[in-house]
């Protein structure tokens, strides 16, 4: 459903963010990308979203090359990014155009995220977790086949984050969109994803691709969970080391 074929992204400043990325996400699969900050994981998401174009290589979504933002993709950002002047239902209907806020699709997706009593509330009246659920509803209202999540819960407190991870899986079960999640939280990746891709180095490249063969709902205390935590941690450690080496080499090259 999502395909990245030898993708490279160099910014106009000359910074090479990611290179040599080959990655596929199957239909209905949830793939999490973890990695240290600055490894280019958000860049990859933005390439899939069509918010940026790769310098070389191809990004494909639902069988089409990505040439810009597309309605087959829903995005949830780290911040809810709700329009503060619109009510919850109008925010959810934002991409549908005016007058759609009372349509049954909007009511359904608001019910799915459990915010029906708040449909007419303004963003300033919501808690951080509720605001992020509105953002999820807004991303899913057109039932896009692909859902992109860019560190969606990292601005929330630990309890709300765990709540929302569980909640996301419930909402995801609605029609099981192909999901690409960027996070820096190993536990979050292991709770949510079918596969965890470890990104690292500078420029970022794929260091490990770990299959999470655990049944849902997953327990954070099971030994199998700990085994995967260790495995991811080790891969992440390697990637951080390689990133440090690359950065040191670059500094030396400059100096």
């Amino acid at each position, binding site marked *: 459903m999502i395909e990245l074929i030898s993708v490279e992204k160099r910014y106009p400043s000359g910074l090479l963010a990611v290179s040599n990325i080959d990655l596929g996400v199957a239909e209905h699969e949830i793939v999490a990308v973890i990695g240290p900050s600055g490894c280019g994981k958000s860049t990859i998401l933005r390439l899939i979203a069509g918010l940026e174009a790769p310098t070389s290589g191809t990004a494909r979504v639902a069988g089409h090359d990505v040439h810009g933002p597309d309605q087959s993709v829903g995005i949830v950002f780290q911040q809810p*990014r709700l329009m503060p002047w619109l009510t919850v239902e109008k925010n959810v209907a934002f991409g549908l155009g005016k007058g759609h806020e009372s349509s049954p699709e909007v009511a359904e997706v608001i019910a799915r995220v459990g915010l029906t*009593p*708040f449909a007419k509330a303004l963003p300033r009246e919501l808690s951080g977790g509720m605001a992020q659920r509105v953002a999820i509803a807004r991303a899913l209202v057109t039932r896009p086949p692909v859902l992109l999540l860019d560190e969606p819960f990292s601005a929330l407190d630990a309890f709300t984050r765990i*709540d929302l991870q569980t909640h996301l899986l419930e909402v995801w079960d609605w029609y099981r969109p192909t999901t690409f999640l960027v996070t820096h939280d190993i536990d979050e990746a292991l709770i949510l994803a079918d596969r965890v891709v470890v990104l690292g180095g500078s420029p970022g490249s794929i260091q490990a691709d770990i299959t999470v063969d655990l049944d849902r709902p997953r327990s954070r205390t099971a030994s199998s969970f700990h085994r995967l935590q260790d495995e991811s941690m080790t891969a992440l450690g390697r990637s951080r080391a390689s990133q440090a080496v690359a950065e040191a080499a670059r500094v030396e090259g400059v100096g």
Partner: protein
Amino acid sequence: MTGTLTPPSLREPQAPGETSSHPRERRRRLGRVGLGLVVPIAALALWELGAVTGVISTRLIPPPSQIATTLADLASDGALWVHSLATTLRVLAGFALGAFAGTVLGAATGVSNRFGTLFDPTLQALRNIPSIAWTPLFILWFGIFETSKVLMIALGVFFPVYLTFSGAIASVDRGLVEVGKAYGFNTYTLIRRILFPASLPTYVIGLRNGLGLGWMFVVAAEFLGASEGLGYLLVDGQQTGRPAVIIASIAMFALLGKLTDRVLASVGARFTYWQDGFVREGATR
């Protein structure tokens, strides 16, 4: 499940200026208006007292009671209405023209980099010319009658509206803009659905600034030859040696200026009730 939810203060979003019918709320509002009147009433009382006791010379500084009489006289022979109406109409016409131009150019320079680089330096340079300096030229070009006056006012209104609006657009949260881009919005839709609403609170402040300057410029315009208007009344009071008439016109300027600003502010508040800003300490939203 994530637990059951009970809505908090799930009141319908209520626009300020729309008083709730609750008697306690209404009393509090009246109290607030009352507090705002304490200082001016005390000042007027002291002034009157000074005149009665002879501390203040009434020949040059007439007491409030005499100004009130003058206002009543002017009102009864209809002159007050004629002059106030003439001035207000000029301000409104100039404001409409200047605010429209400021909005359009402000949006263009705020949104488009090319347009901004092309026009903004010129406009910034022109802004530094005291607008009153244009008056002789405007009179040469457009004559002594209404056109030059309205254009003078429009020029005064234009700059604050232009500056505030283009600045407000430039400071709209990049994250919100990206939401629109992710929906594939074109520039026009981006302006209409994100940039304009997001900059509305600041834009309203720009409009209010502009209106204030409009009232300033109407005086300058009316000084330079008018047969009616509050500015004319000012000059007339000076030339006929009637300070009460001057102060009465000044009072009318204050009243009309405050009134139009109030209308603009409450219309603005109706569109910006969603703001999650600082609420003054001790105040209620």
